């Protein structure tokens, strides 16, 4: 696809200019067909995602917001993005892009892209927190897998899991209560050392204190409006579709993975509910939004399925630890063993999946950077005012 090859070189620009393209009128029908195909593809991909997350007995299904599902989501995004670029930019005279309404809509989209880039960075860093919890869970798994289960292991597991659960629930908040996030002292400390302990946070954010993921999302959604009337059959439509897709994917990442300041995350998307291509997206958004509302009250670290599992199992195992006496009754042991196995499985998924997830987010980041660069070049070429040299 030549569109992705443009390096912003002079020669590249010449070839765009020299591409005397199909006028809108001549191939109007082809264009309408292309638009429809694009929408259908978007609809299909998200419908697959929706059905992939349906809770059935099928073990190969990826639960909603699990690591595997998120990776699929990111793949879907990349596909949609590539198709979008081909549809709107490839083989077109740049002056088409400079005409209303695209002259306003494309820069708006690019603004959203910049916000999405920041969210990618925040989320990538958030995955580090998840790794941290994963390691704590691993400690517990190692301890509780030993047979026979002894007091020592149980205490060890409890210590790790308490730390895990505690830090998950205070994650979002600006920790003045930072002692909870710090790997717990086994005992309370008096005196000056307490103050020192308070300084230490096990998780430091790499964004400025005023940055808020929720605000970024709000801002992205802020000026999206479905094209109306004559605009709805032109290129304004794919731009709208892409904006929705971009916002949805970004929003989902924020909902799933801990990153700074998510309170106030919007749970409603400005998509007219009757749009056919958007049905699956709306469906997913409803489900995730519901989950988010439930969790937000309890102060959750994020909806990542594996994390939810860890929290649940963690709490259950802590209860077990609290009531543990050696030797444990066999039924209890069996019960616990099942939970430990599940926890181990979750850990395994994290072990295998977190790295690739981070890489994929990075890939999305790169793709957005590249596309943004290309779009900026095209806009410049089309005679938009690039910064004047005088």
């Amino acid at each position, binding site marked *: 696809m030549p569109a992705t090859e443009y390096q*912003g070189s002079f020669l590249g620009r010449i070839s765009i200019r020299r591409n005397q393209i199909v006028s809108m009128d001549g191939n109007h029908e082809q264009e309408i067909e292309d638009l429809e195909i694009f929408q259908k593809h978007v609809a299909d991909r998200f419908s697959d995602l929706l059905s992939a997350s349906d809770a059935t007995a099928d073990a190969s299904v990826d639960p909603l917001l699990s690591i595997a599902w998120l990776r699929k989501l990111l793949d879907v995004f990349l596909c949609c993005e590539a198709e979008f670029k081909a549809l709107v930019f490839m083989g077109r005279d740049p002056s088409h892009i400079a005409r209303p309404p695209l002259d306003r809509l494309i820069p708006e989209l690019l603004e959203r892209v910049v916000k999405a880039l920041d969210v990618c*960075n925040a989320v990538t860093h958030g995955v580090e927190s998840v790794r941290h919890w994963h390691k704590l869970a691993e400690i517990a798994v190692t301890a509780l897998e030993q047979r026979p289960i002894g007091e020592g*292991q149980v205490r060890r597991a409890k210590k*790790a899991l308490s730390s895990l659960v505690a830090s998950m629930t205070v994650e979002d908040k600006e920790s003045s209560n930072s002692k909870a996030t710090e790997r717990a002292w*086994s*005992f309370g400390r008096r005196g000056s050392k307490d103050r020192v302990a308070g300084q230490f946070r*096990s998780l430091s954010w790499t964004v400025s204190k005023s940055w808020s993921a929720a605000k970024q999302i709000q801002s992205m959604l802020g000026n999206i409006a479905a094209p109306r009337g004559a605009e709805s059959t032109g290129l304004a439509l794919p731009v709208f579709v892409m904006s929705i897709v971009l916002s949805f994917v970004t929003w989902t990442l924020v909902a799933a993975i801990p990153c700074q300041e998510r309170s106030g995350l919007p749970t409603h998307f400005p998509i007219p509910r009757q749009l056919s291509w958007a049905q699956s997206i709306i469906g997913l958004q409803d489900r995730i939004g519901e989950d988010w509302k439930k969790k937000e009250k309890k102060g959750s670290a994020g909806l990542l399925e594996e994390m939810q599992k860890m929290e649940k199992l963690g709490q259950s195992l802590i209860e077990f630890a609290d009531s543990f006496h050696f030797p444990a009754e066999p039924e209890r042991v069996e019960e616990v063993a099942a939970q430990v196995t599940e926890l181990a499985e979750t850990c395994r998924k994290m072990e295998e999946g977190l790295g690739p997830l981070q890489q994929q987010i990075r890939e999305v980041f790169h793709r957005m950077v590249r596309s943004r660069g290309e779009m900026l070049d095209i806009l410049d070429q089309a005679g938009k005012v*690039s910064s004047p040299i005088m």
Partner: protein
Amino acid sequence: MEPPESITLDAAEKIILRWDSTASEETTDRMIFDGDRREVDQYLQAVDEIQRSMSAATISDGDRKGNSTIQIAMARLEDEFRSILISNTSPLETDSLIDSSFSTHSSSINVHSGEFEEYPEDERVLRQVGESPKAGESSSRASASYRSTNSIRELDLIPAEAIDNLRCIAERMISAGYHHECVQVYGSVRKSAVDSSFRRLGVENLSIGDIQRLEWDVLEVKIRRWIRAAKVCVRILFASEKKLCEQIFKGLDTATDNACFIETVKGPAIQLFKFAEAISISRRTPEKLFKMLDLHDALLDLLPDIDAVFESESSESIRIQAAEILSRLAEAARGILSEFENAVLSEPSKVPVPGGTIHPLTRYVMNYINLISDYKQTLNELIVSKPSTGSRYSGDQTMPDMDFAEFEGRTPLALHLIWIIVILQFNVEGKSKCYRDNSLAHLFIMNNLHYIVQKAKGSQELREIIGDDYLKKLTWKYQQAATSYQRTTWVRVLYCLRDEGLHVSGSFSSGVSKSALRERFKAFNAMFEEVHRTQAMWHVPDSQLREELRISITEKLLPAYRSFLGRFRSHIESGRHPENYIKYSAEDLETAVLDFFEGYPVSQHLRRRSQ
């Protein structure tokens, strides 16, 4: 130091239980490692004994106890570990680490004046950091020594004795299978310390959105600061942390070593690179070129050290990111240059510069490529393709063209710079057509091409790059323009002073038509006054060129006038009101020419010849 005698399992257990953190307040009031060395050794020995017995034991009731005991011991050791780390951890004195004398390029281009400005770096002394007094090699606190952050310099962050203790603990935790806990506690303490030092270096936490919105001159300052901070971070801060991990975990477990290091520095490293990345993806406009190149060069310089410090597999993503940013910066530089060429070509202003003087575009472009030639070392590496030039590719005769065959063997950068001058010339010629007065158009071209040549000659690098041949061509061109100017203006003026048409044919007397002569004088005076009034307002900024042009004018004008006067004044003076016709002496004219090209209006009254 004598090892204590070996102890029994029972005794060992008692010791461990005595120091159970969760058991009683008493034991938590103080740390074992703060106290008596004997107690420390005793405790460690106890731990060893428990571990030994566990590995020897078969499954039995005794094992259950050992199991529990080892956990108590590990929990205690974890707290001790944390305590030792905390009490020996303090942020680096980062102020004294920053050396600002390394930068060679500190110029930026002022978009409005077209001139570039140099920012002097303040020279600061790099003092030795407050290292542990035991480290004999780093002696002089008192003497100021100049040392730049040009290479890795590992500091001893924790005194040797503390490191020994930490090792003792780590060894036991790892062999008991508690390395996870060890990493956790290490990470949480050291991470905060690194964060704190990091913040003191002033690395800002801006989002990509923030950076896109900031003005470039604000960003330039930040870039400069970032370069300084990055050198300290990579070469001193991170390198020292790595050394610390090695010191503590050497020979124990490489995985733990790496895990601790990554845990500690990954966050700050990512945050550090985030800034550079955001700069590398910002919108490409010409004035950004030079600071981007500075950033590129700094990162290139740092890359080997980044690779060294982050050599482990788990830090691969950091190495990759640094390389990605570097390549983006290179791409951005190339893009900006392209962008610039395009902008010069299509710079559209059609408002003629008053007085035909040097166009701001000319100034800007020449200063810009002057700066580029300063950066030629880097740019020669980055720019590898030839400029894609006009009409041959586009078939468009309204585009400039350049024959590369003339410039065989030149670097791509040289070709680009020459191409830029070609485009500039083309643009200047286009702009000259906006002048209604052809003379002024020629003057304009003369001024601008002359400026180009002067600027090019003024810089050693630029001159070398462009080559004297091409400069000769340009020189010829502006000289041509000067000639054209003169022809356009003065031919018709001097036409008034011609011989033909003045002599009346026929009669035997020396017939000179007095009326024709009077007309001639009147015409000459009017024309000259017109030219004088107009061209005084024209401007030739270069004083030497101005002089030369005036001299050239007078060389043609004065002899012609003198000769005319000489031959025909008597005829006028013999008639009425000669002063209406012979208004000026040759000297008057000469003086008047001095007004030319000054750029100021003059009064209409020229000195009349005194009668």
